[in-house]
């Protein structure tokens, strides 16, 4: 059941050391503010799950929050590598990082299965690919009608899902729109959840009959964090700051520039800082 909280309280109550945590967002609505709070609170040994780990997970991995990453594409989209993720995988810095690697199709199906309370997802996948050779969590099932053999992966059922949405109403119902990714599935599949939103409104008002809404009884903590998806974006609120994604590459390339940036912008930062960041023009 939804409760309105501060971000600090929500993370303190919801995320524990060693948890499996899915912070989703497919380019759109990435929960940066919430992720920074997890970093500030010093969580350790997390298993991070995300289809497209990008800068936020680069930051969390570089700060030593994660013991394992379950993912399907880990890069800075359109820019290049995640240098902190690479440093962890290639050099075990600041600590070793186990990988459980899938394809997007597998991860999307696994979230869907988690939301549907199924133990596994069956799909047509991985034909001729090498990932099944290195990932024991890719198996197969046989169709009991046709005899066809399909790929199978375990359902994703995280301890915690964290997402950023557009709006919540006073009852704690949450609305998403635009590129909705797997966020609804992540929340429905998780035991606990935190949803940050751009704003809390009295009423959603007139809307499409089939709007993507998570009812209040399906979410945990709700926190209003305007701009909380920066440098990602929020449909109808602010655009993706592509310049930041490009600027991240040199920052993350070296350990010392990374740590200095994190100290100033995250460790000494506050959720309230995000509103101003998101308001800046994309080129700033």
């Amino acid at each position, binding site marked *: 059941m939804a409760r309105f909280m501060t971000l600090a309280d929500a993370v303190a109550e919801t995320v524990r050391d060693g948890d499996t945590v899915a912070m989703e967002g497919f380019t759109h609505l990435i929960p940066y503010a919430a992720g920074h709070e997890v970093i500030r609170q010093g969580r350790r040994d997390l298993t991070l799950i995300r289809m497209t780990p990008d800068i936020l997970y680069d930051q969390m991995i570089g700060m030593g929050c994660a013991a394992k990453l379950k993912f399907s*594409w880990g890069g800075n989209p359109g820019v290049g590598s995640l240098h902190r993720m690479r440093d962890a995988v290639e050099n075990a810095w600041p600590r070793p990082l186990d990988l459980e690697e899938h394809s997007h199709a597998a991860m999307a*199906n696994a979230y869907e299965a988690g939301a549907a309370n199924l133990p596994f997802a069956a799909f047509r996948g991985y034909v001729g690919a090498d990932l099944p050779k290195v990932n024991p969590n890719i198996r197969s099932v046989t169709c009991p009608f046709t005899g066809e053999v399909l790929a199978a992966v375990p359902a994703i059922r995280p301890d915690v899902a964290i997402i950023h949405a557009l709006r919540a109403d006073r009852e704690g119902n949450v609305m998403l729109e635009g590129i909705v990714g797997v966020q609804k599935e992540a929340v429905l599949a998780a035991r606990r959840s935190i949803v940050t939103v751009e704003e809390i409104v009295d009423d959603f008002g007139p809307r499409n009959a089939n709007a993507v809404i998570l009812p209040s009884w399906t979410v945990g903590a709700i926190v209003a964090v305007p701009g909380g998806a920066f440098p990602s974006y929020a449909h109808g609120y602010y655009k993706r700051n592509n310049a930041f994604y490009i600027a991240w590459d040199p920052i993350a390339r070296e350990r010392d520039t990374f740590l200095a940036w994190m100290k100033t912008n995250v460790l000494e930062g506050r959720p309230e800082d995000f509103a101003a960041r998101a308001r800046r023009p994309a080129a700033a």
Partner: protein
Amino acid sequence: MTAPIRDGVPAFTPTEMMTVAASRALTSRDVCFVGIGAPSAACNLARLTHAPGVTLIYESGTIGTRPDVLPLSIGDGELCDTALTTVSVPEMFRYWLQGGRITVGFLGGAQIDRFANLNTTVVGDYAKPKVRLPGGGGAPEIATHCQEVFITMAMGARAFVDRLPFVTSLGHGTGGDDRRRRGATTKGPTRVITDLCVMTPDPETKELTVASIHAGATRDVIRDACGWPVRFADVVEETPVPSAEELAILRDLHARTKRAHGGA
């Protein structure tokens, strides 16, 4: 229409030639699953020139999108704002890609072998990689569910390799009918468009064979940029050069994109 000539040299870069050649592979009847980077530029150029009816789909869930600027990622707001509709990512991979509704998957990659298998996962050993690449993303299933696959990437001996350290997505496997024996029912890669030439698989062996050479490139330049002893078709064409219109539209697109992204 011919290309502008400056000092006797066609006034376009190899990357522009690659993008234009790739764009020409699409028609207005295609439903195309667009990979990010080089494929995205080619697909949108096609839409803005000879294939206005092409349906572009990005794995973020955007269907029938008509971006005014190129996205930096596969999920930029521009893609959603200009789409016919946007579906969830599970639906995208289940109903649309696995559903068999896509005619062309347009992929890039870090490494390719002579049978058009792609690697975007690791260089070196998987457990102890020399270089950890981003991974497969949508590619493993794009490679097998789309009716055919176009690949576009710049040539170079570190990219066009004799042997892949890791097969992220299936091309023609070990050649011949290997792809079908592994269970893939679609055509797989039918052309590879590079900055030097266009390659197509040999009908029998499925080995990539140079079918046309871009203006300014030569057989020797292509051989040097390829990590395997590359074969040439019996008749090798010269790739038609970009038209002035294609170049103008492509450059406008890139200029708009650069302004919009506000950096680099």
